[in-house]
Structure formats: C-alpha cells, structure tokens
C-alpha cells in the first residue's frame, strides 16, 4: 500500500530543513517508543544512509533519489524509494520490504539476511552479492558479478544478467527471464521444477510484477567447489 492510500496521519520530513541525523534518530526511537507509522521524506537529494538501521513496523516513502546504503540493515520496516538508489541499497537487510521505483546502483541487497528488496528498474553490478537469505526481485536487468558468493535466498531478474552470474555461489537460487551473458565459477543452469515455478510466482506477486514464471530459467550451484580439491584448481 502506498502512503497515498492511507487515512492515517503521515509524518512529513523535509531533508532540506531537517538534518539526516535527526530524521534517523527519530526513526530509530520508534524501536523503543511508539510514534508515527507513516512517514514521507521530501528532498532526499541523494543523501547517504537514509532510513537505515530501522527496527519498527513503519512505512517510509522517500520522494526522490537516495545515495548509498538506503534502508541498510533494516528490520521489519517498509521503505519505498520513489526514485533511484545509490550503492548498497538494503544492504544486510534483516526483514521487511524495500522498494526502489527506479534503478539501483551496485551491490543492491548485498549480504541481506532476510526481507524482500524490489527494484523496478535495473540493478547494477554485484546485485545480491554475498546474499544470506534475502529475496531480491529486479524488474529490469542486473550487472556483472551479481549473486557473487550468494549463500541463501532468491534473486529474480526479469531482464538480462551480466557476466559471471552467481560466481562461487552457494545455496541461493537464481531466476532469470532474459539472457545471461555468462555464468561464474560453479554456477550452472538447473531444472525449473513445479516447486520452483510456485516460489517464483509467489516472489513476483509479492513484488507486484506481472510476469510468467514459465519464461524464467533457474540457476544455482553445481557444488563442485564446496570443498577444495586440486583437480578443480583451474575453476578458481
């Protein structure tokens, strides 16, 4: 639900007049004391570390572009960026939802351990790098080295994927609808079975993206590099 649909009061904060530190502190205080549930942030102007470290059932709409690490390490909160996001949006997300209407720079959702990140546009390189349980749905394409050393969680790419997708991947599951420029070490295409189509449909629905799961291909770990063997040295 976007904020426009709510009848409850919305706390409006203009970052041209309110320091970022003050805003983040107020949002952090919600972990310990009740306060406004709905927030609208005006004029972010590419601010870094915006709405990061939240631990409350709040909804934060940001009208504009954000810099690095927006919504980093959040728990429970919903953050919607009505613009583009810089490096590391939703990095190490623990739970909750982060939606970027525009494009996201590199390392989107890096090391995330839970929750859902939706990028409606494209995401740059290293999307989902070292992901540890987060779900990421990208409406467009992702850049090179996405899902590098991805441990857990699901990455859904409705467009194309760049070079070295899933390099040194562990147990994360990757779904790509378009072309894959190349797979990284130990990443292979796998059969997309009914249970995968079902979880993919669920992820697309959660992201609000209309796409047919049957058009996707699944990728994951061949598990050949899980324990070092000298015969695999050329793969490293």
């Amino acid at each position, binding site marked *: 639900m976007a904020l426009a649909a709510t009848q409850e009061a919305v706390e409006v904060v203009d970052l041209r007049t309110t320091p*970022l*530190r003050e805003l*983040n*502190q107020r949002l*952090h205080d919600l972990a310990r004391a009740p306060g406004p549930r709905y927030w609208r942030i005006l004029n972010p102007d590419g601010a*870094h*570390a915006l709405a*990061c*470290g939240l*631990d409350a059932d709040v909804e934060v709409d940001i009208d504009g572009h954000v*810099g*690095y*690490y927006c919504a*980093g*390490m*959040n*728990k429970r909160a919903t953050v919607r960026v009505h613009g583009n996001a810089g*490096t*590391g949006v939703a*990095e*190490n997300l*623990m739970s909750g939802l982060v939606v970027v209407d525009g494009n996201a720079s590199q*390392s989107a959702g*890096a*090391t995330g*351990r839970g929750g859902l990140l939706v990028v409606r546009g494209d995401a740059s390189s*290293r999307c989902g*790098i*070292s992901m*540890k*349980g987060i779900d990421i749905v990208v409406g467009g394409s992702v850049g090179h080295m996405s899902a*590098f*050393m991805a*441990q*857990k969680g699901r990455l859904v790419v409705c467009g194309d994927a760049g070079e070295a997708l899933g390099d*040194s991947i*562990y*147990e994360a599951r990757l779904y790509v609808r378009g072309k894959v420029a190349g797979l990284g070490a130990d990443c292979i295409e796998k059969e997309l079975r009914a249970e995968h189509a079902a979880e993919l449909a669920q992820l697309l629905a959660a992201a609000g993206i209309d796409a047919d799961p049957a058009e996707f291909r699944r990728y994951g770990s061949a598990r050949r590099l*899980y*324990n*070092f063997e*000298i015969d695999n040295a050329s793969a490293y």
Partner: protein
Amino acid sequence: MGAETAEQPWHLRESYLFPRPVIAEIQRAAREGIYDIRGFGAKRRLPHFDDLLFLGASISRYPLEGYRERCATDVVLGTRFAKRPLELKIPITIAGMSFGALSAPAKEALGRGASEVGTSTTTGDGGMTPEEREHSKILVYQLLPSRYGMNPDDLRRADAIEVVVGQGAKPGGGGMLLGHKISDRVAEMRDLPKGIDQRSASRHPDWTGPDDLEIKIHELREITDWEKPIFVKVGATRTYYDVQLAVKAGADVIVVDGMQGGTAATQEVFIEHVGIPTLPATRLAVDALQELGMHRQVQLVVSGGIRSGADVAKALALGADAVSIGTAALIAMGDNSPEYEAEYRKIGSSAGFYDDWQAGRDPVGISTQDDELARRFDPVLGGRRVANYLRVLTLETQTLARACGKSHVHNLEPEDLVALTIEAAAMARVPLAGTDWIPGVGGS
C-alpha cells in the same frame, strides 16, 4: 666439536638453499598437490621490537621509584567522533579471533580474562556469540568482507565497531574456514551448509576505496546513533598511505597489524611473504598521523608479534596508543604447551611447533569445533591465565616506563630508544646504539 660419528656426519653439508624443511615442503607439495595452509603467524626471522633497547634513566634522566611512584596505564580509544569512547585500564587489547576458528570456551576465556583486567576483546569472522558478549565487558564487533553473522542488533550491542580491511598475516587476502571445522552452530551463524569450506572474501561487498569507506563509516555511525567508536584495521603494507586514508575516511581508531600477526588458516606462502613487519609499520603509522596533526586524536593500536611488556613498551614509545595480542593470548591459555606433548605427537606435531589451527584437532581445545576437544578447555581457568598474562605484560611495561622516568606509559617516546641493528634503526627511526646515526635521516 666432537669426533665424527654415524649420528654426527661432519663431512655432510646441508644446502643453505635446500635445507631439510624446504626439501620436506617440496616433497609434500608434490605428494598432495595443494599449497600448505596453516595457522599461527610468520615464523621467519624479521626485524622486530627485540632489535630495540630502552635507555634507562641516569644522570641526565630521572627515574621513578619502581615500587612507590605511580605509572598510569589507562587509555581511551575513540575520542574523535564517538559519543561513548572505550575507556581501558591497560593499553593491551585482545585482537579479533573468530568463533569458528576458536571454540566457544576459548572465546569465553578471552572475554573473561580481558574483562578481569579492564580491557577489550574483539569478535572475528563469523559474528558475535552470546557467551562472548556475556563475558566481555568491552567488546569490539568486527565488520568483515564476509559479513558472516552480521546483525544490526549485535552492532548496537557492541561497544565499538572495527571495519576490517585486512590483517597482517594476509593483507590482500580473504579467509578460509575449512569444512571440518564447520559445526552445526558455526554453519547456522554463517548461513551456510555444514561441512563445506567457508571462504571469506578479500574485498568488502558494498564499498571500494577510501571515498566509499567514508560513506560506509557514516552508515555505521547512523545505525548506531553515533555512539560507538569506529576502528579501521589494516594489514601492514602501504601503511603510511593506508593510515592517512583511514583518517580521511573518518576512523576514530586505526589498527595496524604487522606481518607477524597470527591467523587461523592462511597459505604459508602468504604468511611468510606478504606485508611488512610490525616495527616499520608502527613508525609509518605514527608518521602518517603526525603529518595530519591527528596523532593522539585518532588512536593507533598496533598488533603483530606482541609477546612481552618490552614489546608493548616499545610500541608505545614509537607512538602507538595501545597494542593488541592474539597468538600470545592463545599461548597464555595453553596453546603449544608441553603438557600436551604426547597428544601433539599423535597428530604429527610437537609442543612449540603446532600450527595446524586450521585442522580443528587442537588437543588443548582452543582452535577446534570438536565438542569433545573443546570440553577439555576450562574457560574459567583459561580466563584466569589470560588475565594473569595481561597483568604481567602491564607490570613489565610499567617497569620499563618508570625506568625511563615516565609517570604514564604513554609518555614513553622514541628518544627513549636505540636500535641494535642498522635495519631496525632505519625502520624505527631511532639511533643505532652507541651512535647518533639514524639511517635515512639527514641524507645519511
């Protein structure tokens, strides 16, 4: 020299280039087809604090009475930006060592020992355990490239945050916890299946270079409401530039780990051939801070081969605010103790030589995840030994400081030192003993 016998064949000459250990390693490599991975730190001879001596007081300097006059040892880390700097009673901290590399009782012992004497301990790759938090009064939480177990609640529970860029045993290298050390608990903490090799990346996943690091530090401050000091740890290589860049990026405290720093599992070739020793790294770090006018504003912690109060005092005299110990703390807890000689023999090693910390078969119960072995280690006794050892280091440091007439260990200075070798004189930039010659200074 006695007469030649079958056991002492004097006419045989061993090669300098191919001595028996080199032959053994070549043949091991040929047999196994994989490089040697081991724990511990550099074993080669390196210029170190042993190559420096203190000039005790005499007619021109006035000593303090060793048993009556106070020589303070307190240190505050993180005074630059943090709301809550760390207040330590001694300038010796416990370095980051992971749960995974070490057993839970061993981590608990480090916390107990450090807390007993009023200093800090540090997490490691793999996250923070409840035992560690419970028993560490002051705990530094590491943010590493792997981000294993990284949790904002733990960030907020920590007393300081250490962004690890590198470590002295392997600057530029990632880490590896071999599959046989991955217990159910370690696997769960790191979000990986049990029994597989767990690689730690060499680069952080969401920042590259000093400008990004500045923004990353800003994010960590925002998440923790600017309460926690932010440390930046680097392995000693281009130390002068690294320290200046870390200051620029906003670090409160910089940790410089020389190449003698220990590791749980690293390639031998990396341990012995990458990085610079702690001695020159200390001097370079202090130079960098002084040039920026930030010496004592941004605190400097030095680690890598600290064993005695003499090492501590010399590091402080060169300008460090504190030191950090890792390997020595494990040894204090019983690692490599002759008490376990028979057990070391069973696994092909010997007390004083054991460095297979990566293997998880440590008979002392420290570098293992085997429940049976870990149970051998008593965390209360281990903590007591760590505390005793830290006290001895502190007393030794005070003894040397008093002899130099200092009422606080931080008042030790380079002028109190001379070098035994030309190399150490050049690296530490103190005169060669008996001369006023500092190689490289004044065109000499």
